[in-house]
């Protein structure tokens, strides 16, 4: 499948943000492990990896705005709806299990990972309902 200019820009943004995520996570982990961070700097270092992930969500939104192919836009919106429904359902279910003492605690940031997994489910759903070419 030929990627549109908007999709290419999206890929570049995601690659840069992923590199920033990996770098900031390693730096924060090192900093906290060696007690190098405190005060405002500690808060900044702790949320920097989160900002990279938020940036990826932003890049997806930007891609939806910039993509001129309405069919491709629809495919991505369907994927995002699947991802949101999957992540929110899992988070709600796990929250109740945890509050009743039936499941252990999971760090909240894993919900973003589940959301990205949901994008994969959405892609499978697109393929099943719209044919092989609908899988992004």
């Amino acid at each position, binding site marked *: *499948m*030929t990627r549109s200019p908007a999709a290419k820009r999206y890929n570049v943004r995601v690659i840069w943000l992923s590199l920033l995520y990996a770098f900031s996570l390693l730096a924060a982990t090192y900093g906290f492990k060696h007690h190098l961070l405190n005060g405002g700097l500690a808060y900044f270092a702790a949320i920097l990896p989160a900002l990279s992930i938020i940036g990826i969500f932003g890049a997806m939104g930007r891609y939806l705005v910039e993509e*001129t*192919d*309405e*069919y*491709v836009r*629809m495919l991505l919106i369907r994927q995002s709806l699947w991802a949101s429904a999957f992540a929110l359902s899992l988070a709600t279910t796990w929250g109740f299990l945890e509050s009743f003492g039936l499941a252990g605690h999971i760090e909240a940031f894993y919900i973003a990972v589940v959301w990205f997994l949901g994008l994969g489910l959405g892609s499978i759903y697109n393929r099943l309902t719209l044919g092989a*070419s*609908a899988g992004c």
Partner: protein
Amino acid sequence: MENRLRVLRAERGLSQADLASRLEVSRQSVNAIETGKYDPSLPLAFRIAELFERPIEDVFVSPSRRSSGAI
């Protein structure tokens, strides 16, 4: 939505990729519209009709007229 896109395209000897290029959409969009899996927006439907120099109802079959047996 049923349509005559495949026939009109074949009459002009255009591939899906050719048509996609002229419409400035992806080939998968053309394929989805041709197979009735995706209904284009009105602006895109008009662009398709104008490209083939046909009225829009010559390209796309109205679902309501089809169900009433008018076509």
